[in-house]
């Protein structure tokens, strides 16, 4: 049975109980089996990585978690109850936020406005009030702007607050995407290849921010990443996938010494 008690990491952090559990997930597209009978859990407060070679089904798995795909078989358990099939925006309302592998920001809008969209799930003033920017809409915007400013301060992007996103370099766009996800104050943050295409300095910055987010806000993070150095340094536990199957699960050290994982990455002679 799964331990729901939590555990203590190598560097002495206390990790909470199970936040999300994937039970025997299978995902098919017609005859193609993208994910085959995979189970794993994500504990509260941990950094959980999903790794694997290209085409292993990592992004599909992330899309199952975020509600973009409904699994063909299996169950998703979130905060102690089984999650019925849901639309992505409903999942988002439950406190799951994500960033995308290919940046999905509003290029023509300023950084501030982009990050504000992350607060959308927390706004519920009516159309009339919004249009007149009066009463509830105004109070709400001020309250949300304050939250957004804290995120901007946290990620050190004050100097580009008013800059249209289209004018920013790649590394900063990635950071803005993270800001938008953080603005939603998620309990689970999904990061789809947060370091893809970055230079060493940008990677170092991003790693620091991911750890800071986890540390300061206690946000649970699930990330997909190709850069093994980054994964092994950042994450508490790692799931390894290959051809839609789970071939390893454990701490970075356990995974590193797992023969199946080594074979999957380096190939085996036939």
């Amino acid at each position, binding site marked *: 049975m799964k331990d729901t008690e939590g555990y203590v990491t190598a560097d002495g952090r206390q990790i909470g109980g199970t936040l999300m559990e994937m039970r025997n997930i299978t995902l098919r597209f017609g005859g193609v089996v993208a994910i085959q009978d995979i189970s794993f859990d994500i504990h509260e407060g941990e950094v959980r990585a999903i790794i694997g070679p290209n085409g292993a089904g990592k992004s599909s798995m992330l899309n199952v978690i975020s509600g973009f795909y409904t699994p063909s078989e299996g169950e998703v358990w979130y905060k102690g109850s089984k999650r019925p099939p849901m639309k992505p925006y409903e999942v988002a309302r439950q406190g799951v936020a994500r960033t995308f592998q290919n940046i999905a920001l509003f290029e023509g809008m300023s950084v501030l406005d982009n990050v504000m969209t992350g607060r959308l799930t927390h706004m519920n003033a009516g159309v009339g009030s919004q249009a007149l920017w009066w009463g509830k809409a105004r109070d709400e915007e001020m309250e949300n702007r304050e939250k957004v400013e804290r995120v*901007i301060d946290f990620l050190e992007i004050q100097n580009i607050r008013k800059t249209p996103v289209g004018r920013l370099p790649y590394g900063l766009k990635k950071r803005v995407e993270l800001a938008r996800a953080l603005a939603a104050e998620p309990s689970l943050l999904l990061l789809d290849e947060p370091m893809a295409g970055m230079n060493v300095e940008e990677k170092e910055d991003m790693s620091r921010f991911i750890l800071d987010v986890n540390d300061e806000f206690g946000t649970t993070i699930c990330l997909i990443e190709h850069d093994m150095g980054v994964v092994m340094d950042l994450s508490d536990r790692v799931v390894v996938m290959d051809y839609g199957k789970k071939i390893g699960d454990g701490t970075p050290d356990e995974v590193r010494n797992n023969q199946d994982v080594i074979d999957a990455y380096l190939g085996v002679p036939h």
Partner: protein
Amino acid sequence: MAHMTMGADGLRSVPALLARNASQFGSSSAYREKEYGIWQSWTWAETAKEVEALALGLLNLGVNEGDFIAIIGRNRPYLYWSMVAAESVGAIPVPLYQDAVAEEMEYVLDHCGARFAIVSDQEQVDKVIEVQDRLHQFEHMIYLDPRGLRKYDHTRLHQFSHVQDQGRAAYDEFIKELQARTAKLDYDSTCVMLYTSGTTGKPKGVVLSNRNIIETAKASSEFDSLKVDDEVLAYLPMAWVGDFIFSIGQAYWSGFCVNCPESPETMMTDLREIAPSYYFAPPRVFETQLTQIMIRMEDSGTFKKKTFDYFMAHARKVGPAILDGHNVNAFDRLKYKLGEMMVYGPLKNALGFSNVRVGYTAGEAIGPEIFDFYRSLGINLKQLYGQTEASVFITQQPDGEVRSDTVGVPSPGVEIRIAENGEVFYRSPGVFVEYYKNADSTADTKDAEGWVATGDAGFIEESTGHLRIIDRAKDVGAMADGAMFAPKYVENKLKFYPNILEAVVFGAERDRCCAFINIDLAAVGNWAERNNIAYASYQELAGHQQVLDAIQAHIEEVNASIAQDEMLSGCQVHRFLVLHKELDADDGELTRTRKVRRKIIGEKFEDLVNALYDGSTSVYTETEVTYEDGRKGKIKATLEIRDAKVSPASSQRIAAE
């Protein structure tokens, strides 16, 4: 002006000034800082409360009279309060440069024996912890921003707001003690200790008393009639004497508001939002801004560019005259007004200079073109000459007598004397008390009558009484043939070109002068972009043939201009190379105030200097560099050495005569 309360025994310390401001200007703003996108502000009354809470908190931590408290971080209201709170409890604040690496900090912390430190964030906490093992006296550290520090051992580490809370909680216990200690402060007690940036050798701790700071602040505030409703932007290093005088001395004397930017990167935006009325910047800042304006104008459309050029030409013609209140005919005035509407006004607004009433530049010579550019826009930019040992002010330019080649007349209360060898001496109420734990240096610099050697060579213009500075006295040397060698003079002329960021001229005891050049990446990079020149790195751009051609042309122009000067015609640059890396304070090549450390550069790049003199046309070199995180790396490069055309010396002049 609200200085009538200057009683016989009142206002003899900065905390006393704070008390006066809290009662007299209680509801006007003392500090503002942009945080979370909004300008947060504190009135003088609130400031007094915050400082009191912190001072009580310091007593609670066991700060004794005479203790040194290091203050490290960028300009923030909390750190300014820390300085005043430190003085209130009879301790001595020692602001340090926040970009200093750990070893530099270790020297200063060890030298002053600081028992306490108040720092801004995790970065500074880490640096102080790193050197702590070797410091025996160190006890407690207080930090502002808790980010990333949650898991640190908090036995000797305290969050700023908690210290204040504890201070408030222990109000009854310590308030008597605090009042007694503050009351004891007089004109001769130490107000602050500032470390000189150390162009040569180790930094020295300059002890400045309340008398130094308050007398200087009073005289200079009156000189420019600073008032309670003035606004300044505090963005220069807190460890620098200028910032202390502007943001504490004058601010507390006049009661004006000190605004702190959100982060160094947002400085320009914040400047625009605040639009200060009193502004100070080293020449480098003005140069960078001008370079940026010019780059952006090059990129703008034809109509805009033409309009800009047309009105700027007019501004150059009549702008300074209008600013100085000279007679200018009505037509030119009208045209200038039109220009104000079309170009100057919007430009000043974009730069954040719309409200500047008084602006100062100092620290280095400023290029005449740069200086005139700002003055022609109607910005009252003036020069002053000063140093830490004088509590800044030695000379400054009065309104209406502003020129780019002088540094002005002696400031109120300052006497000036020129020694036989040309070195400038001064005496004033602002003259420092001593160098801390360094009686020898104190005696070398300050004589029994209170005259202080500036280390600069200069002369007083007879017609106007203005002081002109030639060079650092110890840099002024002789070449092999005995001709005068003034490297700074040549370097400044070179640096006036936007393409050249830094220049280092060698030639003492040699038969001719040679130079290292650092290109300005912003200016040269933009030029490369416009001319479709591809480059991957600073190093590649610096070695590009066309860049070298451009630099060579600049040097030859400078040579021609130096040749006009009989005394210095020997200082023409014969050979030069463009350095493969930017000179950097982290590598010890510049001081923290970004002044060139000639000797260190000469030693470090000895191979390059030799190559300049042995006639070779290229040289291979490897240079160690320090990255921001303290790691070291190596840059390898082959540099081309070029000969520059030298203009015939004063013979031209003789022929003309």
